[in-house]
């Protein structure tokens, strides 16, 4: 059901709902991307923002909600809550923990953030070692699945069944092996 001029469905509105801090490890998180970060079956880490990365959570949204209001030609990525690296340590034994937290907006109840805690404390402008950032983005990128490519690049379409994506990868490998 559409409820606004920008095509935002009713489910996206917060409507006084409370924050839901509970995430299942298997819950999917979604984000959009425009540049060609999908190559040879991999999502490139250059497309991952750090430390506070906005995502939509599956429990309260559909994947295409990340394309609202005017990103219909962008791509969509998906990864599971459990795919987020739990923690990394920098030189000097400083521990950084990562977790997704529900951070609803009035017009996007599912909005969440992948946040970083330094020695148990989260700050918006946290001072992070660059190598920790780099490693985090690399490890997470390896768990990301592209479920829609940007239209402008590949006549974008939803990969409704992930087997389709696997099929693409297999086709590439077959091509290489010829």
């Amino acid at each position, binding site marked *: 059901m559409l409820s606004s001029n920008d095509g935002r469905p009713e489910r996206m509105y917060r409507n006084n709902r409370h924050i839901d801090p509970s995430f299942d490890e298997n819950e999917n998180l979604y984000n*959009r*991307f*425009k*540049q*060609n*970060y999908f*190559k*040879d079956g*991999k999502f*490139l*880490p*250059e*497309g*991952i*923002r*750090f430390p506070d990365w*906005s995502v939509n959570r599956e429990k309260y949204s559909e994947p295409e909600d990340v394309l609202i209001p005017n*990103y219909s030609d962008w791509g969509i990525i998906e990864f599971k809550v459990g795919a987020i690296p739990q923690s990394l340590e920098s030189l000097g034994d400083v521990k950084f923990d990562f977790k997704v937290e529900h951070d609803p907006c009035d017009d996007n109840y599912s909005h969440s953030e992948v946040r970083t805690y330094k020695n148990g404390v989260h700050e918006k402008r946290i001072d992070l070692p*660059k*190598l920790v*950032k*780099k*490693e985090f*983005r*690399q*490890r997470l990128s*390896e768990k990301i699945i592209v479920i829609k490519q940007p239209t402008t690049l590949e006549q974008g379409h939803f990969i409704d069944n992930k087997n389709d994506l696997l099929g693409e990868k297999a086709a*590439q490998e077959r*091509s*290489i*092996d*010829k």
Partner: protein
Amino acid sequence: MQAYKTHSREDRSDNYVRKTSPSFRASVNQSLDSSTYYSTHHLLVQSVYDGNKFEMGKVETDQFNLSLSDAAISVTNNMVLDSKGILAFESENKSKQRLNSLVIISSKPKNSITIYQNSRNELKCADWVAEFSEKLNEMSCLKANWDSYGAEPPNEVALDWARKTLEILSQKEFSPTQITPSVENGIGISFIHNNKYADIECFNEGEILAVISDGQGDVKVWEVEISMLGLSSAIDKIYAFFQ
């Protein structure tokens, strides 16, 4: 003169190597220029793996086989390797048809091969260098918030180091898989082969970081020294990682 380059570490749509065992096949699926309509042309084939890997007088007749998918061709003299490691032979396009696909098969599994058509005195930059240089130019036109989450476009510092990286890669004849702007404000130069991944990321702040990952959980990141030597060293490390 146009240069056609093949790479053993990637699969590109127009210009790539397909590995088979024990040999591999290098293909140039790209139309050759109009001179190929003439009855005779010359090709120079140069091994670029390990530099002068093939020594003068040691080229075997079965080391390279030349075939064309849609035109009859024959090698009309023996292959000769000069002091620069360039393997030269003369061939004849009997059908006088446009040559669309050139295939070279080497019995040396790790060789990559550069094909220079109608070689004369000057060598043109490989296609991938021009392609990625153009991508860098396009990135300079990105606007603020190009990713809709507040990313800044690559600035001149990042572009400059990315161009230098590309320059070294060109010298080493080592093609990246992709060049993209980074949402962390900079430029990423990525390499992918099989399940392995590596990149060099040049940030707007002037820092350069690199990563290699085997795709099985072994991830190594390091800071690249901000110099041509530092970049060259990082590229060598990445190159070795894929071997």
